[in-house]
């Protein structure tokens, strides 16, 4: 469960990258976070995970305030960034050991989860190689395995499908579904509207730091033209936001 209350963030002290955002992401759902480039998606995810400080507002992850009790909060979520940066001169297995140690995972559990996850994502055979020899997709998979190693209650994924091959992408979507069905939380941002449409239980659209929509796909469709694709709804929504910003009045 993630609770975001009146969160704002500005990089330059003038313009808000995230502007008074309030959002509740419940247990047992896959929540999609959509928006055009520079909308504030990554900034929001980084604030949820404690990578960026908040200018105002508060964020609770599984009941722990990320600024007041950061360690408790961090133990309970996994974050996969949009850019698969890993320690290039560590071997895959060394990276996973490092993550296992940091999260205090006992030996038998980490062994079985490494075995299971690396086979599922097809990177088991390269674990003995340095990660600098990995392709973009392989690094993404390694980070995913590392993130899921401690079986976190909440998954926070920033563009997780980027660089994944179709098989791994399918595996990840399936795992996201299993995780949500087990009563846990998945929050992910994406540009791939088809993925959001197929996977998300609820979704939100953000643009220019402001929340434009929160709800189910059906609710979104009912607000706009029935039977529209998510793509046309998205464009309509964002287009309206731009017009509103240009005219300088009117809000959602």
């Amino acid at each position, binding site marked *: 469960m993630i609770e975001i209350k009146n969160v704002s963030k500005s990089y330059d002290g003038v313009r808000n990258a995230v502007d008074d955002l309030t959002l509740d992401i419940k247990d047992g759902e896959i929540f999609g976070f959509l928006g055009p480039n520079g909308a504030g998606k990554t900034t929001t995810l980084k604030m949820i995970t404690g990578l960026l*400080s908040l200018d105002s507002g508060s964020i609770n992850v599984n009941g722990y305030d990320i600024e007041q009790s950061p360690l408790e909060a961090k133990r309970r979520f996994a974050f996969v960034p949009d850019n698969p940066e890993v320690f290039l001169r560590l071997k895959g297995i060394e990276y996973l050991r490092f993550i296992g140690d940091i999260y205090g995972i006992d030996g038998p559990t980490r062994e079985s989860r490494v075995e299971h996850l690396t086979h599922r994502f097809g990177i088991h055979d390269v674990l*003995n190689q340095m990660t600098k020899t990995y392709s973009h997709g392989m690094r993404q998979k390694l980070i995913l395995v590392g993130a899921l190693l401690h079986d976190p209650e909440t998954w926070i994924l920033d563009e997780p499908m980027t660089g994944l091959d179709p098989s791994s992408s399918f595996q990840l979507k399936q795992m996201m579904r299993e995780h949500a069905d087990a009563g846990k939380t998945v929050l992910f941002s994406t540009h791939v509207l088809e993925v959001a449409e197929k996977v998300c239980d609820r979704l939100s659209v953000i643009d220019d730091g402001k929340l434009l929509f929160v709800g189910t796909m059906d609710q979104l469709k009912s607000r706009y033209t029935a039977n529209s694709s998510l793509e046309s709804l998205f464009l309509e929504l964002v287009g309206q936001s731009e017009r509103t910003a240009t005219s300088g009045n009117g809000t959602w």
Partner: protein
Amino acid sequence: MRHYLILMRPLWQEMIAGFGQGFAKISHKKKKKTRSKGASIALYTFTLGILTVYSVLYGVGTTEMLVQMGNVDSFLHLVAVGAPGMTLLFGVMQAIPILYHESSIESLLVLPVKPSVIIAGKVTQAFIPMLLLPMLLFFPALIAHGVITGRPWAFFIQTIPFMIFVTFAPFALITIFVMILMRYTKFARDKDRFQMVTSIIAIVLVLGFVFYSSTQGSDNGIPGSSMFLPDGSAPALQGALRFMPASALGTLMLARADSWHTLLYGLGAFAINAAIFGVLLLLSSRLYIPGVLGMKAAGKQAKSLTLKQQTRALAPQSAYRSIVSKEWKLLLRTPAFFTQTVLSATLLPVMMIGIIIFTLIRMEKTGGFDFSLIALIRLWAGTDLWKESLWIIVMVASGAAALFSGTNMMSSTAISRQGELFSYSKLMPVPIHIQVFAWLTPGLTTMTVIWLILSVSSTLFLHASWMFGLLIFVTAWVNAFVIQIVSFYADMVFPVLDWTNEIQAVKNTRGAMVSSLGMFVYIGFVIGVGFLAHALAGGHSLVTAASMFLFALTIAIIATFLVTQRARKMFNVIDI
């Protein structure tokens, strides 16, 4: 030329950013940024000022010595050989990462400009920062030399082209050499291995040269002075200049600054530099781009792990040990990190001790004493006589410890080395004090091991009491700790996390500056405190020694307190 100037715009920005990039990442708020810039300028001004003072002192000391010997031009020979030597050393380390390892190279290669334009831009980008060090070390010394020896005004004007002439030609040559290796050898294309091996060879060669020069002739304590014969001539330097035409002509240009011949020599030095630059550009179109495109990431296909190996490789350990282990692996496996931290930290003490032992043995054999010098020192250390010189021992141990610790930049770059991956530190559910301790561990461990070895071996060699060894160890450890913790604090406040090649993380940071230059300031303070206390205490050795020790201890405690305070809020102020 137009394309070159356009290309230089972003490259120039990168160069500048290499010196000041840490601040933007610390906070994005305008007010904080302004404060950081002010602090940065103050820090740079202070350290540059200190370095200039040292350079001037060096210039004055050497020139006065040469005036007495009656051969003042030998100073020019020293600079004309020293600056290119420095260029060769740092040129290799600067050229490889900037020409081949920058993450932005690919974005340049796709531009519709001639390869020679790209190489000219990249060479400029590599050369200017590299020029700074010999410039800082030798330029003020040259000016001081000119003033003392009453050189004509043309001398002072020509010192600037002189510094460029004597550094650019060797830099261009070393760049050509690097490009040939990158283009035609498989060895060089394993970039980590190549960078590691060339850096080690370069450092060993230079240290070997320093060792050689320090064991020649008599030494009065001024670096390089042992190369001069009693008449002030320096055959080794003059011999070296035969192979360095740009330096030789540059030297003549300065030496003959009072006649029109200086123009001829200047033109000659310029022509040599221009010719080498022309060759560099000509070859670059054949060597550079194919070399870059032919590069591959290091690492061979490794065998898959067996279940047993996998179990062993995943064996649990504490978060602290895991972070320390990761730090050591990255230090040892990353060429730029290894050469700037582990290698320099271990080579300098070894070389210094080697020089002392060699000098002692040489003096024993050829010093013309009718007694054994080593036996005399052993007598001094083995009885209570050393206690009378307690303050000298503390002063020497403090200075040596600060010097060795300053070249060991493990702690001073501990945070900057994380780069963008500092995000892991923020994401980890590991208390900050554990992470800070883990970051400091490699530097402190190295210093502890080095001083343990030095204290024990000097005690055994001198047949001294263990109290003598303990005194050296404790004094040295506290002073080494001061440099490590102060420079670590500087890195905490001004981390550079958005570097594009690894060398930036260990060379251009405030922490690295505080470590490598600030140690001279600190050594100056320790000596100052020592002499002040000695004067105030009426020459009482114990009081003087205690004053110096307490001075170091106080700074260590204050710096530790500041680090713990900063650690509490570090994750809040560093956004990534």
